[in-house]
């Protein structure tokens, strides 16, 4: 049983006079700049088996919402509740450190994703096989293409056997072969009662994965409904 439930969710960004983001403690010390709510009063419930696409123009809050669900950002208002093991692929870099090899990155990210060191060590061969990187797995990530990085990032994320999968446009950097792998995996998660939340501009792929969509505009949830219906509202806006 997986669940994502948000009520009155808000994420605020504070800026100094040079428009740099500053943490609240520093904002109190410096002369106050401006503020912007990246998410404002967002409420929803995502149940087991839901595939949700986040639609909206750039800067509408899609990434902020995914990061808040992933726990990367903590809300400044409202509440969020998540039930289920979660895996996220929120940037092309996927948390990879360029100096380290694919294997060394997998050893680090596996633990940070929630596995113990022993479990991560045991999962390394599976990660290597799933990523399809072969001998590249032993080379520094700095030599990887964006697609190879996304492959490795996804394979590590998948090693925690997620019940909730978050994808932020990263799948769009993948080659067609691995896209199919990601789609199949996402479909398996959904069929097993999990949740997939994906943002991006590849609407045909989102439509295949998601039965539902959110339309975000300026950090607010403007529409929540069936994918085709919300997509139409977005494209007509």
């Amino acid at each position, binding site marked *: 049983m997986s669940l994502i439930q948000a009520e009155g969710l808000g994420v605020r*960004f504070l800026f100094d006079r040079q428009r740099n*983001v*500053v*943490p*609240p*403690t*520093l904002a109190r010390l410096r002369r106050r700049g401006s503020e912007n709510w990246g998410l404002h009063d967002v409420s929803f419930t995502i149940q087991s088996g839901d595939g949700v696409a986040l639609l909206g123009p750039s800067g509408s809050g899609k990434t902020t919402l995914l*990061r808040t669900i*992933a*726990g*990367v*950002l*903590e*809300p*400044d*208002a*409202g*509440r*969020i*509740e*998540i*039930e*289920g*093991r*979660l895996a*996220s*692929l*929120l*940037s092309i*870099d*996927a*948390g*990879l*450190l360029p*100096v*380290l*090899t694919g294997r*060394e990155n997998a*050893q*680090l*990210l596996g*633990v*940070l*994703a*929630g*596995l*113990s*060191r022993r479990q*991560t060590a045991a999962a390394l061969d599976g990660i290597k096989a799933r990523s399809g990187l072969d001998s590249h797995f032993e080379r520094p990530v700095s030599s990887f293409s964006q697609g190879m990085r996304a492959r490795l*990032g996804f394979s590590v994320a998948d090693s*925690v056997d997620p019940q909730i999968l978050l994808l932020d446009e990263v799948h769009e950097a993948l080659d067609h072969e691995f896209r199919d792998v990601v789609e199949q995996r996402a479909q398996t998660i959904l069929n097993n009662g999990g949740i997939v939340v994906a943002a991006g501009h590849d609407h045909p792929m989102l439509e295949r994965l998601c039965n539902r969509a959110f339309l975000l505009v300026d950090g607010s949830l403007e529409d929540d409904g069936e994918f085709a219906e919300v997509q139409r509202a977005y494209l007509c806006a």
Partner: protein
Amino acid sequence: MGIDSARVSTRAGAPIRVARTKQQAGALDVLMALTVADMRVRYGRGTRRLLKWLLDPFALVGVYLLLDTIVLNVSGEAPGLSLACAVVPFQLIMSTVINAMMAVTTRRTIILNMAFKRVLLPVSSVLTESAAFIASLTILALMMIIYQIAPTPAIAWLPLVLVVNVFFALGFAYPASLFGLWFRDLRNIGISFVRTLFFLAAGLVPLAQIHGRAHDWLRLNPLTGLFEAYRSVLLFGHAPAFWELAYPVGCACVLLILFVPLYNHEQRQFAKVVE
């Protein structure tokens, strides 16, 4: 699977609630993974790793030591060893501060992609630098050989002195991390400030050779106690005085009490700031 809940309040007083399925590896696993990755970034891989680990401290400390003993011609009992008793422990503090200042920004890609125990980042900086610090102890041994100073039973105190040194570095790690994140343009000034602390302590000459008000003033610097503790054990062959260990520990405790809660509060905002 349990639910990990946290309740905090906004300035306006509206309750915020975050509840999520516990999914994080143990703190020790996370700490080890971060430190091992940091060490690999630092020392690379393969056979040259050991050589680099052993030679790095000499590059960092040895040249400085030669300059002070030969060029400045510092006098006194075994001046090279006396100086090493200050330079070696200070190098741990200095390198920890530099590492901690970069700890958040260098892990930007991880911070933006996944939730983990970010409060462990400064501890990881200390562990990485402590591993390098172990190699620099060979300099102390080398100096003892050069000056023909045999170890006494007081050397049994050395492990405790080392622990105090590492703990003192930990005290610096949390404020250094926040400073490095908040004031990225001022990192070099922060590093210069810490370096200045060395010269405001009994670093170049032992406290026993300093008299008058300067003697009293230098004792206020916790680094003086730390340096003197090394000298007591390795150079003078007696147990360190109580204040030499207690004062640095007390200062580190104050720093940790002040900055760990602040860091813990601020780490919630890291992903916004490093974007």
